[in-house]
């Protein structure tokens, strides 16, 4: 844990070293998020309510989504790049270190722009999420569960590169898919698509369940969120470990 925190701190300091760029990128991402807020406000201004969703609830979903993506993709930036790193030979340098390679890779780099999401999400929750101490606690709980599912899903997909080769295209597609599906109210999807969102692309666990919990807390839903987080964490670690056993280095790191 100490090594992970130290690596994360180094990654953060690396991003912080270019202060002007740091704040600029955070500002740009916040502006990007504001554009989505405008989209949803305009949408519900025309539509009214949609299957139990209104501006208020969708902004809560968006607050959770930006917090989750800020944590999962901002603080653990390599989670979406694992396949690319494996294909590019960067794994070799991590394997030579006396620490868990997956933990090291995940904490090695922060994405400054996505830290803007991490700042924006809680602010949006405070502004539009009817914050009370109880709701804030559930918001944090939901965001943590959603982050674990997102990172676990992306790491598992990236680790497929250890078995199947390629340049991590499957992880890129999975990343796009989960973020897009997680950006929309789950209830607009029906039948098979909904089943898809609880299984193959678990976007429902990233934003759908956490939003539902903050709106009205129910223990079975909370337990489902924890179970999904545990499952995807286990899936990620297992896939990476098994893949690592099959991995044979391309020795690309010796180029350095």
């Amino acid at each position: 844990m100490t090594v992970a925190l130290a690596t994360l701190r180094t990654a953060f300091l690396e991003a912080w070293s270019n202060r002007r760029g740091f704040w600029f990128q955070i500002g740009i991402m916040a502006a990007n998020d504001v554009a989505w807020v405008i989209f949803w406000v305009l949408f519900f201004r025309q539509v009214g309510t949609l299957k139990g969703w209104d501006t208020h609830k969708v902004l809560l979903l968006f607050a959770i989504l930006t917090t989750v993506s800020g944590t999962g993709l901002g603080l653990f930036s390599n989670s979406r790049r694992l396949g690319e790193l494996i294909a590019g030979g960067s794994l070799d340098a991590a394997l030579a270190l006396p620490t868990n390679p997956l933990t090291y890779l995940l904490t090695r780099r922060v994405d400054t722009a996505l830290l803007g999401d991490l700042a924006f999400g809680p602010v949006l929750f405070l502004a539009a999420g009817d914050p009370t101490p109880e709701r804030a606690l559930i918001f944090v709980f939901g965001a943590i569960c959603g982050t674990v599912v997102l990172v676990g899903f992306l790491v598992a997909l990236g680790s497929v590169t250890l078995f199947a080769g390629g340049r991590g295209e499957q992880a890129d597609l999975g990343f796009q898919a989960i973020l897009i599906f997680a950006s929309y109210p789950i209830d607009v999807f029906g039948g098979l698509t909904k089943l898809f969102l609880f299984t193959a692309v678990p976007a429902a666990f990233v934003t759908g369940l956490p939003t539902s919990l903050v709106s009205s807390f129910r223990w079975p839903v909370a337990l489902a969120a924890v179970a999904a987080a545990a499952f995807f964490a286990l899936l990620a670690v297992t896939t990476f470990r098994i893949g690592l056993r099959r991995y044979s280095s391309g020795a690309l790191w010796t180029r350095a």
Partner: protein
Amino acid sequence: MSALLAQVHLSARRAMRQRGELAVRVAFYALILVIFSALWSAATKANGGSIAGYTAHSLLWYVAAAEGSVIATKPRMIEAIGWDISSGAIVTEMLRPASVVGLRLAAELGEALVRLVASLAVGGVIVWLYVGPPPSAAGIALFVPASVLAVGCNLAAQHAFAGAAFWLRDARSTWFLYQKLVFLLGGMLLPLEFLPTGLADVAKALPFAAMAYAPARLASGHVEPWLLAVQAAWLAALLACAGGVFRAGERRLEVVGG
């Protein structure tokens, strides 16, 4: 001119060979269409069958056309151009006996046309299966040149926007802002009729509308040929702007010694 046409041809062939990238992009587009089909179908159903003059049928054709026209260009092109400028890599292109921005635009156009055709073919099938044929044959006939003009406007505007890197050195992240302007004021996410009246009028007068709204409006069954004239005027203006920005930027690099 022959150099530019050769560049368009070469880059189109290159894009056709990069099947993996093309497949990922088309799959991404199909995914968006599936989501928007569900969203807009539910929304129109909840509103008695139409919103702001659009039925579910016309809205889905609108979305397919708008997304397809925008997704044909690379989303992070501004970042890539900005990087080439700030790193100095662009200097090698200045040695060629041809316009830097002209060759870049030709290369991007070749690739974008391949992606446009592939995306619209897949999108057309998905929407057709979902809601039936396009609302108007005349509208679709006008949509074809409109989508090409939309891609041209988008490419020219991105080059003009990215040219700021000649002065700012790091304009890479501005692609986020540009993209959102196209999404909202260009009518990619929502038809401009969904915006408040004053804002909709402003948006229709901006170049972003030529990149998504114009082709999508035509594909959604609104036969308004004057939209093509607006797009052509914007294309000429944006090409002149991109050319001017790059010429001034290149002069600056020569003076500073980039």
